[in-house]
């Protein structure tokens, strides 16, 4: 029964996608009804599965799962199936909630119930509509998204991808979901394909993640070749893992190390880690902020989920773990430094996402399996909250922009200010999300998950990782407070901000629900030392049970807790103090070109990779190689044949065959004929003279010769 539900989890969104695309795309209420209904069904199924998982004793050893034969390979079959173990149960829990909230939120965000825009065209964001009230006054109001139904189709497919990925019991269907989400992110980032920036961002996102994907595909092929299976059951069997660890591969790494690295590169792409982080900030071109939220809170989590899933394999080779820790901690710090200099409310969150994912990766690199998973879940909740909140802010700002007719960038934080009074629900929920992100002590979920990461890094002796993450956490609190201060505190800096208004209930209700989780979810993972051992660290025991040898709970350590408290509170305070007074972007001391331009990574990549690729494609391979070299060779063969043919014709056929044999015979006959015709005078007497003369000659000859 449970297995059936798990099989069915991804299906409602898929059906919803096909239904909307094929049948209901003209009908907006029906389309979002189907989509939200499908998300609701999946949510219900997920909750049932989750509750059943909670009710199972020693769930890590008695996971749910079933598999079917999918691909015949020789005499055996490759099986695919579903599996819910503690880790995927935890993930499916947050996926179900966030997905459902996104779906509901999208209805309001895309201005359902508003009139169609005056000049709105498909492929561009709605520009607003003019309506007349009872007194004949004309107002500009937001207009409904022209491609409303299509959006719900795309996010339904997206949800299908995410569910597929989570319930998979093997890497292959995980990869299927992974790539389907890649497609959806491409479609959603490029949703407003009329904008050049959106088109470019969509391609950039797809291509950058695909760099990681091809490595991951190699890793999957390697793993499959080495173990003969892709099912977690088989590959995480201690015996199989042992073989992988002892089998040498390349570059002095074991097979496990190489596979781990290849798979991890997939994560680097999907979870936007350095050096493949460049796509995520640009992905904010999608419909604000829903796709952004998908990209930041859901899909990128898939990358981290995959490495957490593969942790038993990764942990076999110390080199791989070191590499993972390096990439994670470097990204955490690197992205945080960029985030402090961004003015776009979504860009800050985008870089913050990269940075937070770096925290998880770094945690995993230090071996903190549970901490990484815990931060994954809490981060999903509070980052979803923040993105939806920022969308709500932008939506409110756009309302103000339409109302006043003032042309300002509705996403630039320096155009905001004082929004706490205009948008109270958004403000309070955003504040909760921001504090959770900063790790505000005790209350918020972010504190507990981040604290666990610090404790693990410190406790296992990864001091460098610990220090780097601490600095990153300080910056996180700082830029979060900068964002909150600039957006909500102070006085409105533009007319649009003065006339911003709170968003409809379809948008605020998801914010409130997610805010509850952003606070409450931390409590399930409170360490034993805090509760005095009264409540065990539930999350640790639950998720830790996924591994064959559940990790130890760390004892209380003073240094990480102190650090955690200091960086969170210090960062928040510092941010508040600095930005309380800042009135415009010019007065912001952090507007450093190097940071604003994201360390020039786009430019460097354009020079190093994009340009050469263009050159190879447009100049080298099809023009120079095919046209010049290969076709040139063929043409010279053709030319040589032509030359040979002409030579034969001119120097053999013409003079010998034609001249000598063909024409020559004719000419000889003709010449002899015209010579001889002279004797054919037509005069009989002449003939007779000749014949008599010949007769006489012959007679004489006969006569004399006989003699």
């Amino acid at each position: 029964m449970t297995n059936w539900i798990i099989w069915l989890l991804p299906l409602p969104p898929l059906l919803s996608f096909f239904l909307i695309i094929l049948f209901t795309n003209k009908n907006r209420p029906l389309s979002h009804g189907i989509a939200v209904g499908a998300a609701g069904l999946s949510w219900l199924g997920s909750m049932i599965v989750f509750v059943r998982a909670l009710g199972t004793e020693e769930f890590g050893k008695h996971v749910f799962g079933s598999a079917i034969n999918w691909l015949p390979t020789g005499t055996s079959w490759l099986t695919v199936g579903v599996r819910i173990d503690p880790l995927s149960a935890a993930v499916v829990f947050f996926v179900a909630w966030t997905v459902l909230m996104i779906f509901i939120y999208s209805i309001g965000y895309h201005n359902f119930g508003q009139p169609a825009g005056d000049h709105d065209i498909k492929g561009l964001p709605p520009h607003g509509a003019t309506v007349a009230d009872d007194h004949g006054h004309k107002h500009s109001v937001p207009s409904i998204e022209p491609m409303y139904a299509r959006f719900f189709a795309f996010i339904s497919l997206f949800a299908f991808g995410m569910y597929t990925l989570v319930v998979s019991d093997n890497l292959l269907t995980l990869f299927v979901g992974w790539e389907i989400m890649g497609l959806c992110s491409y479609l959603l980032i490029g949703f407003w394909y009329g904008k050049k920036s959106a088109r470019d961002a969509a391609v950039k996102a797809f291509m950058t993640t695909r760099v990681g994907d091809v490595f991951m595909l190699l890793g999957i092929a390697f793993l499959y070749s080495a173990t003969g299976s892709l099912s977690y059951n088989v590959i995480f069997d201690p015996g199989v893992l042992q073989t992988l660890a002892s089998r040498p591969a390349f570059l002095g790494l074991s097979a496990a190390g190489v596979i781990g690295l290849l798979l991890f590169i997939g994560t680097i792409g999907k979870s936007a880690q350095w050096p493949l982080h460049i796509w995520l900030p640009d992905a904010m071109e999608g419909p604000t902020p829903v796709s952004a939220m998908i990209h930041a809170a859901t899909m990128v989590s898939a990358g981290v989920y995959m490495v957490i899933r593969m942790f038993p394999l990764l942990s076999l080779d110390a080199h791989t773990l070191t590499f993972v820790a390096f990439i994670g901690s470097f990204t955490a710090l690197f992205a945080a430094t960029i985030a402090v200099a961004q003015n776009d409310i979504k860009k800050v969150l985008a870089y913050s996402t990269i940075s937070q994912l770096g925290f998880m990766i770094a945690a995993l690199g230090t071996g903190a399996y549970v901490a990484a998973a815990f931060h994954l879940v809490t981060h999903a909740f509070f980052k979803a909250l923040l993105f939806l909140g920022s969308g709500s802010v932008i939506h409110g700002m756009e309302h103000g922009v339409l109302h006043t007719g003032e042309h300002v960038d509705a996403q630039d934080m320096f155009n905001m200010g004082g929004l706490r009074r205009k948008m109270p629900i958004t403000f309070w929920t955003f504040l909760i999300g921001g504090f959770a992100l900063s790790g505000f002590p005790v209350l918020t979920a972010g504190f507990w998950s981040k604290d666990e990461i610090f404790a693990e890094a410190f406790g296992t002796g990864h001091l460098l990782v610990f220090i780097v993450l601490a600095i990153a956490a300080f910056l996180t609190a700082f830029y979060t407070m900068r964002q909150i201060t600039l957006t909500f505190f102070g006085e409105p800096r533009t007319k649009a901000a003065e006339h911003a208004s709170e968003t409809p209930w379809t948008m605020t209700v998801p914010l409130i629900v997610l805010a509850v989780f952003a606070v409450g979810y931390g409590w399930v993972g409170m360490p034993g030392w805090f509760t005095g051992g009264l409540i065990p660290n539930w999350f640790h025991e639950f998720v830790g049970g996924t591994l064959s040898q559940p990790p130890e709970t760390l004892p209380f350590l003073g240094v990480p807790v102190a650090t955690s408290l200091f960086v969170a509170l210090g960062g928040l305070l510092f941010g508040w103090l600095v930005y309380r007074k800042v009135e415009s972007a010019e007065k912001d001391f952090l507007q450093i070109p190097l940071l604003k331009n994201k360390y020039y990574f786009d430019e460097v990549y354009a020079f190093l990779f994009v340009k050469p690729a263009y050159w190879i494609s447009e100049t080298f391979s099809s023009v120079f190689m095919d046209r010049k070299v290969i076709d040139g060779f063929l043409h010279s063969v053709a030319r040589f044949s032509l030359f040979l043919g002409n030579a034969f014709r001119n120097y053999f056929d013409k003079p010998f065959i034609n001249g000598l044999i063909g024409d020559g015979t004719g000419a000889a006959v003709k010449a002899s004929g015209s010579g001889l015709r002279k004797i054919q005078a037509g005069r009989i007497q002449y003939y007779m003279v000749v014949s008599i003369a010949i007769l006489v000659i012959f007679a004489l000859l006969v006569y004399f010769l006989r003699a």
Partner: protein
Amino acid sequence: MSIPLSWYLILAAVLFCIGLYGVLARKNAIAILLGVELMLNAVNINLVAFWRYLDPAQMGGQVFAVIVLAVAAAEVAVGLALIISVYRRRKTLVADEIDLMKW
């Protein structure tokens, strides 16, 4: 037997030569035809003379002479008819001018 065979032969040869001369030298088609007749008759003289002197028991010589006469008669008939026909169309009897077949 007073006259020897050679005399006949000489007569025939002279006659033949006269005929030949007529055929070769004359331009008038009728004259040419007459020359041909002379030559034929020279042959006839030869035939008869050889028969009489060499083998009188055989009839061959006489028979041949008669055949030649018959042929000559036919020839004259056809030849004169052609000449008259040509003359009617071309108003000439000069052999050189009758050159329609000439290239």
